[in-house]
């Protein structure tokens, strides 16, 4: 499943290209909205970074099942033999890779435009980003399957996802802030534990309930 999705993704490449462009646009929008004052931008950087991740993540996750829907393969998903949780894990892994790719690009762009010294903070930042992205993708994949067949899905998907991700957003922004200030990961251990707990809970609930979402 993962390989099939990645293959489709690589063949088309359209999603990644469009999302890369979207990330670039976001940076411009942030700059224009907040003005060129570097001092002020620096204070809001962790928030902006995660805003960028979330907005591009929403677009990426919302498209999780778009191929199946447009090509009338939905029935195939519903009727697929065996454990449906395998489909969930496959879709989750695909989304995770896609989101991490976009986030890596966004991070480089942020470093370039906002004059960040990424090399020193990268290990810590990578931990925070990885933990946060798993939480985003786990719920996002589940909700994408739920909203795929609903009218107004473009609206319903973020409306359902954003409130649920509120604790993840609080944790990642706070942890990113500390890491960018040069603090050790130990000083934000409570946030990292919360993110890890969120990852475990979300993935477990996703695996256990996905069967019910994809019921014929």
């Amino acid at each position, binding site marked *: 499943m993962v390989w099939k999705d990645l293959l489709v993704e690589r063949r088309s490449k359209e999603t990644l290209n469009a999302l890369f462009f979207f990330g670039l646009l976001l940076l411009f929008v942030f700059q224009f909205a907040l003005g060129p004052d570097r001092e002020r931008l620096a204070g809001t950087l962790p928030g902006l970074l995660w805003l960028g991740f979330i907005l591009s993540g929403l677009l990426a996750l919302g498209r999780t099942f778009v191929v199946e829907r447009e090509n009338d393969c939905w029935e195939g998903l519903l009727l697929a033999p065996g454990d449906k949780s395998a489909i969930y894990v496959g879709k989750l892994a695909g989304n995770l890779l896609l989101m991490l790719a976009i986030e890596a690009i966004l991070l480089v762009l942020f470093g370039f435009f906002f004059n960040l010294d990424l090399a020193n903070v990268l290990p810590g930042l990578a931990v925070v980003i990885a933990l946060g992205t798993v939480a985003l993708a786990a719920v996002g994949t*589940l909700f994408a399957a739920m909203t795929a067949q609903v009218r107004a899905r473009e609206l319903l998907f973020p409306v*359902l996802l954003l*409130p649920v991700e509120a604790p993840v957003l*609080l944790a990642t922004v706070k942890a990113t802030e500390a890491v960018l200030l040069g603090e050790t990961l130990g000083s934000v251990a409570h946030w990292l534990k919360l993110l890890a707990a969120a990852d475990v809970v979300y993935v477990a609930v996703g695996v256990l309930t996905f069967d019910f979402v994809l019921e014929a």
Partner: protein
Amino acid sequence: MRRLLGGVTLAGLVAGLVMGFAIAPREATQGNVQRIMYLHVPSVWVAYLAFGVVLVASVVYLMRRAEAADRLAHASAEVGVLFTGLTIATGSIWGKPTWGAWWTWDARLTSVSILFVMYLGYLLLRGMIEDRERGARFAAVLGIVAAFNVPLVHFSVYWWRTLHQPPSLMKPGPGTMPDIIVAALLVNFAAFTLLYVYFVTRRARVLRLEAEAEA
């Protein structure tokens, strides 16, 4: 039976009002504003109770496919959102004289607001799916996700705020309150719980009638 429950609930609410206004004394530091507590804190309790019931009913629905469980989850979520809204509104009114602002990102207000939007999304999802059976299934999944999210919301908001200032209502600490205030609070807790049960049974009944009318 329903009449009786309604009557007892009404009596409980009146008793709660009497306890809160006539019997409980004026609180020393906050003055009369503290009396909003008899409304605010039981509302939070009912909201958490309601969302807990949503979780249990959702799990039962997914296991047994009993439509009654689905209706219970729906009714409970709606009543929970109602009381969450009341908690936010009364908290805001309480905040104006105590903090000098209608809104502060106090830990409890913030986490209750997150619950409010989360379960508002739940009701929105229910309203947007026409197929009854599928709507029930999806709503049950969302009800489970949302309930597991409650402790995460709680801790994240608590840490988010406490790094700057201690939250005002996080630990009401019954030990520090006079017994009479605790007693008034308990009466209101009981009355609001009855009100919750009354609302949910009526709402579930309306949902059943709606389903029958459609069939």
